[in-house]
């Protein structure tokens, strides 16, 4: 039997109430963004930006506690439960992920956790693919994107449930490409007070996987930390701390290229983007503060459940059932 601490229970309860309230309001005055193009009944213009601010704040808290990026929660939940069209949600999702990566990047680089030499080659591949992904995403019919988004989110849920992580992966021999590019380093691991020397292998396979990661990031506006980390850690053999930090920094480059495509196509609305960015950043600060007093395993289970519901809803919406 899982013991849920009181504080976690309160947070969980608040989120559930908030989501139920959103669902309730959604059915009463929101239009279906995929099938019905009728304009919503006019409400006070500030209502939805306020909802976005509160929801993004909660997502920011949960993203930190669950160890996932903001975008992967933002896009399925906002597109699933609020009346915004998926095009604008994906545009906002990319800016949200970009802002979070830009905010975290400097600290991670200075501490030596994010590694520039590891990030730069991966970023070139991922950002080029993200542009293609964004163009495909804006060109395909909404229901097709919605189905693909739902399937991807459910895939991420499986990945979160099954994926292992390796704190210090064994890399017996670095590959030739990583040696040519001089991708290796030493970082100080404060938990064991030791300097850790690391190197990577399977660089060509990693680069090939970043083509797929970039395409998905651009197509769905999800950010891509959920995919970056396993590739850097499990496939290429970077220590988990280097993988997580480099992944977060990588998003600042990958999402930049896709964000431009959405912005140049008119899919970035300031009235959606700014409350979302402010909310998720404030939530991240609070998340970091309460990280020590919450049970990550409980939060992780909750995130998996919420993502599972959002993914299913996106899938059903795309199929015209939801």
């Amino acid at each position, binding site marked *: 039997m899982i013991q849920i601490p009181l504080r976690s229970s309160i947070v969980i309860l608040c989120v559930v109430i908030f989501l139920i309230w959103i669902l309730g309001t959604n059915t009463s005055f929101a239009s279906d963004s995929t099938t019905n193009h009728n304009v919503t009944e006019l409400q006070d213009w500030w209502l939805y930006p306020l909802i976005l601010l509160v929801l993004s704040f909660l997502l920011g808290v949960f993203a930190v506690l669950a160890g996932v990026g903001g975008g992967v929660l933002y896009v399925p939940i906002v597109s699933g439960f609020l009346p915004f069209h998926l095009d604008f949600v994906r545009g906002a999702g990319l800016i949200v992920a970009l802002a979070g990566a*830009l905010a975290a990047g400097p600290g991670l680089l200075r501490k030596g956790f994010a590694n520039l030499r590891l990030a730069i080659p991966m970023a070139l591949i991922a950002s080029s693919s993200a542009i293609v992904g964004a163009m495909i995403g804006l060109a395909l019919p909404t229901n097709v994107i919605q189905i693909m988004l739902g399937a991807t989110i459910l895939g991420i849920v499986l990945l979160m449930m099954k994926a292992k992580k390796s704190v210090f992966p064994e890399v017996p021999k670095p590959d030739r490409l990583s040696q040519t590019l001089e991708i290796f380093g030493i970082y100080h691991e404060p938990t064991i007070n030791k300097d850790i020397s690391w190197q990577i292998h399977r660089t060509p396979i990693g680069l090939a996987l970043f083509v797929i990661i970039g395409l998905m990031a651009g197509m769905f506006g999800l950010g891509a930390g959920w995919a970056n980390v396993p590739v850097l850690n499990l496939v290429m053999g970077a220590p988990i701390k280097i993988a997580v930090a480099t992944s977060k920094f990588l998003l600042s480059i990958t999402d930049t290229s896709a964000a431009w495509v959405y912005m140049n196509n008119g899919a970035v609305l300031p009235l959606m983007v700014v409350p979302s960015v402010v909310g998720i950043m404030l939530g991240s600060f609070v998340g970091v503060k309460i990280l020590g007093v919450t049970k990550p395993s409980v939060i992780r289970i909750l995130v998996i459940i919420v993502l599972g519901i959002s993914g299913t809803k996106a899938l059903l919406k795309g199929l015209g059932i939801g």
Partner: protein
Amino acid sequence: MDSKENNISKGASKEQILYANILNAGMLIGLISLVLIFILYVSGILSPLIPLEKVQTYWVLSVHEYLVKSGIQVGWAWFGELEYGDMLNYIPIAFLSLLTIICYISLIPGLIRKKDKPYIIICILEIIVLLIAASGVLGSGGH
């Protein structure tokens, strides 16, 4: 292996610190501007091109329908309409999106000094990729 160990320095390299410093300053400028300009926009101090109460009638549409109904031009057209509160918001968003290009440009002199050819080429290619994305030459998707 010995020669490799000799080449490894602990923690962040000089280039990495430079990149972090530029990113940090730019990120702070961009995010603070984003909030301040948004306040000017929603408070009505700067009147918007699309009235605030009308935006919610557009965000339920696909981006293609939104562009047709609102008459908003794609690409960098917003740059010619900065007197409007909503269009002015694109300045900090664009700035945040240009920040990576600025950081990459700052890396090039150090890489040239080190004669680090592979990374000079990769960085230049990345700058080209990001400039192409930013330029809008890739055209409109739309449904």
